[in-house]
């Protein structure tokens, strides 16, 4: 060897031909190995292709499970829960998976199911036998979490053989107060979509993000699990006060029993920040069963309606409509507050101005009557409001002129959405300035001929009595996420200035006088200074003789903390059908109940009203009569 190492090289060493042949032999072995392995893959496919493909499909459900999120709750302003959730599970059986691999999973799976749920083993075996290829069989519905987790534990202990069972989580939305504030809260459909109210408006906050859990087995057969927890929805704290809302709805129910009407809307809000304490549209509907028409229709009617899809959805939508927000109507004399405020702001009227009412005004070819057909005689501005004199309003509006008058409708937020945080808010319909001719301007001055929503009127009136600040009305106070942090807080921003202090002072006094000694005396509440204005509007065709009566008021009149607006559509009474008395009376009854809840307590003994009222009794106000040239054809 040593000689070899020292010997100089004689010739170049290369890969000889013989070595190449042996190299080819090695290469041949490699090629054969490759071909064998490809053959092996083909063999695996031919032998196990179907079984293994099924295994691939069946494994999926196990390692990847969704964790449902909890929809956010809705509470009232004091934290009372108005909407929450109950979690239940549907048990789903996949007979195709259980029967796979010659039924090697059947025994263990059936045993686990019978152990965890109250089911018969033979029943399950029948299901497996009768639906061998099915992959979705709802075994049980609405099972509680305890049973499901018991099964999951059994499955984990014997995961190789317990197969083909999984669970669908079902959230059931529960409304502990039933129909209370139904139009404000809204409901959730079976498919988890929101239907109206806060549920719909704040759906993106209430909805969370589903979580996920997945696992696999490593080489040592340890289950490696990873969980992404669900993100629960946010809790909505509404401005609604359960006590106030309950009082309002109870009074509506009582009124419907005693007198009855086509519809009632009641709105109670805080004029100083736009928060709505209560909003009721008639008696509401059961949120836990939002498709139940039985409160409104007889069993036969429901059967009839139910068979007609169009009629059914019409009936349901009518029931779900929020009168306070979705519907418009002619406001009538409550609008006079705005006409007078506009006049005071523009300086075309003052407290000392006087107006003569002869009972009728002839404009163009129309005759417009005052509510007092024989005329109010000579009135000052305050008394024109107290007695709701149409002639004075016509005079004031004509002095304002069409453009200025129309601009004040704008300034008070009429004709557009207030920005209330509820879906489907109506805009109302106003007459454009260029169409406000003599007659239209005259009727508009006392609230006829154009349409508003209750929310618009309540917000506008609030801005007059609260000192001239227009707050956007809202039903949500703040939004709190699952970990307790506030993610949204309603800011009480002033969206507009409407009137100046002089007007505010005058209007506070005039509305107090109206309740103390004017057309709204039934709205008095013992121990409180109530200010307000009545309204009686003819509906649609004047000849129909249908009225919508209302009262809008504020307490205490000299520094309002609460504004209430009561609208009654078509009072079911032969004597009071065109009188505002039902509205003022109902408002008084509601106020009496809710004011102490809202921290306003009645004064003991004499109250210094600070207004000079005459103590006279006035006739009930009647809607303005507008007679056209043809006599009975009404004019809007």
């Amino acid at each position, binding site marked *: *060897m*040593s000689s*070899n*190492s020292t010997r100089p*090289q004689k010739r*170049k*060493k*290369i*890969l000889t031909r*013989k*070595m*190449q042949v*042996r*190299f*080819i032999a*090695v*290469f041949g072995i*490699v*090629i054969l*190995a*490759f071909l*064998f*392995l*490809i053959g*092996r*893959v*083909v063999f*695996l*496919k031919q*032998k*196990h*292709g179907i*079984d*293994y*493909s099924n*295994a*691939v*499909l069946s*494994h*999926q459900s196990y*390692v*990847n499970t969704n964790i449902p999120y909890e929809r956010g709750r809705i509470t009232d302003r004091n934290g009372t829960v108005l909407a929450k959730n109950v979690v239940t599970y549907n048990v789903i059986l996949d007979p195709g998976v259980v029967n796979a691999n010659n039924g090697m999973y059947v025994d263990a799976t059936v045993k686990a199911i019978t152990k965890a749920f109250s089911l018969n083993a033979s029943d399950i075996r029948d299901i497996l036998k009768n639906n061998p290829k099915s992959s979705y069989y709802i075994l049980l519905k609405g099972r509680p979490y305890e049973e499901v987790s018991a099964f999951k534990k059994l499955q984990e202990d014997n995961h190789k053989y317990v197969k083909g069972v999984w669970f669908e989580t079902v959230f059931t939305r529960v409304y502990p107060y039933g129909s209370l504030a139904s139009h404000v809260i809204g409901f959730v459909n079976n498919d988890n979509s929101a239907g109206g109210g806060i549920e719909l408006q704040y759906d993106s906050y209430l909805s969370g993000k589903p979580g996920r859990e*997945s*696992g*696999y*087995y*490593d*080489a*040592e*057969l340890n289950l*490696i699990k*990873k969980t992404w927890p669900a993100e629960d929805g946010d809790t909505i704290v509404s401005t609604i006060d359960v006590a106030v809302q309950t009082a309002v709805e109870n009074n509506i129910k009582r009124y419907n029993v005693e007198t009855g009407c086509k519809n009632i809307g009641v709105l109670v809000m805080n004029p100083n920040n736009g928060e709505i304490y209560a909003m009721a549209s008639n008696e509401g509907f059961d949120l836990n069963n939002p498709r139940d028409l039985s409160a409104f229709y007889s069993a036969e009617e429901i059967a009839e309606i139910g068979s007609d899809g169009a009629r059914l959805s019409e009936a349901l939508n009518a029931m779900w409509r929020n009168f306070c927000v979705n519907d418009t109507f002619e406001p009538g004399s409550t609008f006079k507050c705005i006409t007078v405020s506009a006049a005071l702001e523009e300086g075309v009227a003052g407290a000392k101005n006087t107006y003569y009412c002869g009972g009728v005004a002839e404009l163009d070819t129309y005759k417009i009557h005052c509510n007092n057909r024989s005329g109010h005689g000579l009135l000052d501005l305050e008394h024109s409001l107290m007695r709701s004199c149409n002639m004075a309003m016509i005079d004031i509006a004509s002095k304002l002129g069409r453009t200025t008058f129309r601009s004040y409708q704008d300034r008070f937020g009429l004709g557009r959405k207030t920005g209330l945080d509820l879906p489907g808010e109506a805009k109302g319909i106003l007459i454009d300035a260029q169409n406000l001719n003599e007659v239209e301007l005259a009727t508009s001055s006392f609230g006829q001929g154009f349409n508003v929503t209750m929310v618009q009127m309540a917000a506008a009136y609030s801005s007059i009595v609260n000192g001239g600040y227009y707050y956007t009305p809202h039903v949500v106070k703040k939004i709190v996420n699952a970990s307790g942090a506030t993610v949204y807080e309603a800011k009480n921003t002033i969206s507009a200035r409407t009137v100046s202090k002089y007007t505010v002072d005058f209007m506070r006094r005039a509305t107090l006088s109206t309740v103390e000694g004017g057309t709204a005396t039934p709205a008095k509440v013992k121990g409180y200074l109530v200010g307000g204005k009545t309204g009686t509007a003819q509906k649609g065709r004047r000849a129909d003789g249908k009225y919508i009566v209302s009262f809008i008021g504020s307490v205490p009149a000299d520094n309002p903390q609460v504004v209430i607006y009561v609208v009654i559509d078509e009072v079911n009474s032969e004597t009071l059908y065109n009188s505002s008395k039902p509205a003022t009376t109902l408002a008084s009854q509601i106020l009496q109940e809710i004011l102490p809840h809202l921290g306003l307590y009645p004064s003991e003994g004499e109250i210094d009203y600070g207004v000079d009222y005459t103590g006279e009794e006035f006739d009930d106000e009647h809607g303005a009569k507008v007679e056209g040239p043809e006599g009975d054809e009404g004019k809007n």
Partner: protein
Amino acid sequence: MARENAIFRPLRRAGEGREGEKRVKPKRYFDYMLLFMILFLISFGLVMIYSISAYNATKYYDDATLFVRNQAIYAVLGFVLMLIVAKFDYHWYVAKLKIHKKFQPSLLLIGYIICIALQFYVWRWGDGTNGSNRWIPLGKSFKLQPSEITKLLMVLLVAYLAYIAPKKLDHFSGFFRILFYSAPLVFLVAAENFTTALIMVGVVFAVPFITSRKKGYFFFSLALAFVAGIGLIQMEGYRRARIDIWLDIENTPGGYQILQGLYALASGGWFGKGLGNSIQKLGYIPEVHTDMIFTCIIEELGIVGGFFLVAIYGVLLVRLFKVAVHAPDLLGSLIVVGVFVQIAMQAVLNIAVVTNTIPSTGVPLPFISYGGSSLVFLMIEMGFVLNVSNQIDYDAAPQQ
């Protein structure tokens, strides 16, 4: 040691004249076809790694491109190293370094000593992962696997030992000399990483087999090695368990990963579910983007796709074969043979494992599997091959 001095003797480059003589620079050959094959395999690997790892990368790291990005960085690093190695004449590895009059070791000898030291270090104090100590941590996020370096060195060592005395390999004593020098490394690696040791043994047998004219004693040695392998398996508990799994994959606990891989292989069909459509990659096959990647390639691209991948390996090996045949000297040829054997064995072993043809053992699919150090060292090996090919006389070059 006299013996070592005899082996690691100075070597004059083949075809080179004596000192002082002016060399004629021949027209050099560069195997662009081979370079293209390498780039193709790596690009294909990156596509498959992205397709297969995106789900898990998103799930666990919230970053779909994490693995493919890492692999791309290693691919670039490996590419640069490959080009550097390709420029570094392979004769220098075995040339004498004149450090001292009495101490003139070659790079190969230094590497040999370092490898033994490294392997000894991991055997005693290495970082435990998967029950074996295979890694030396370097800093916070980088770990060195010395067996990769050893594998590399083994190619050079065996090629050199065969080259200096090819005729001696006709007798058992010549082969024994190779066994003698490689045994310490093989045993130190085998203690921790059976697969790498197996691949090294493959080189130890294949290179002398090709060089030698007589081969009766090979079969005797192979039989002996087989017995030794079985003894080793019996010694290590987890290897015994893997054989049990192999024999009854469906019902033995612990076979989960391989079984899930078989599900993927068998559910792909002839043409696969389409790129990106694998179901088994969605958390069912643990670490699917590393050693198990072939299963999801079949699931997504079908048996036909798998066949094409194997065919590409075949074409790559044909290139290596041609370079070996046309190499300027036997040393270059045998280095390429060593690389050839390593890549072929890795590909065959990997596919054999995932098809449950042999018991489970961790071996990455060359150029495709995710894994930085495997890819980088593979590309350094390809640098050797490119270096050998670069020294082929253009006239003697294989036809493109």
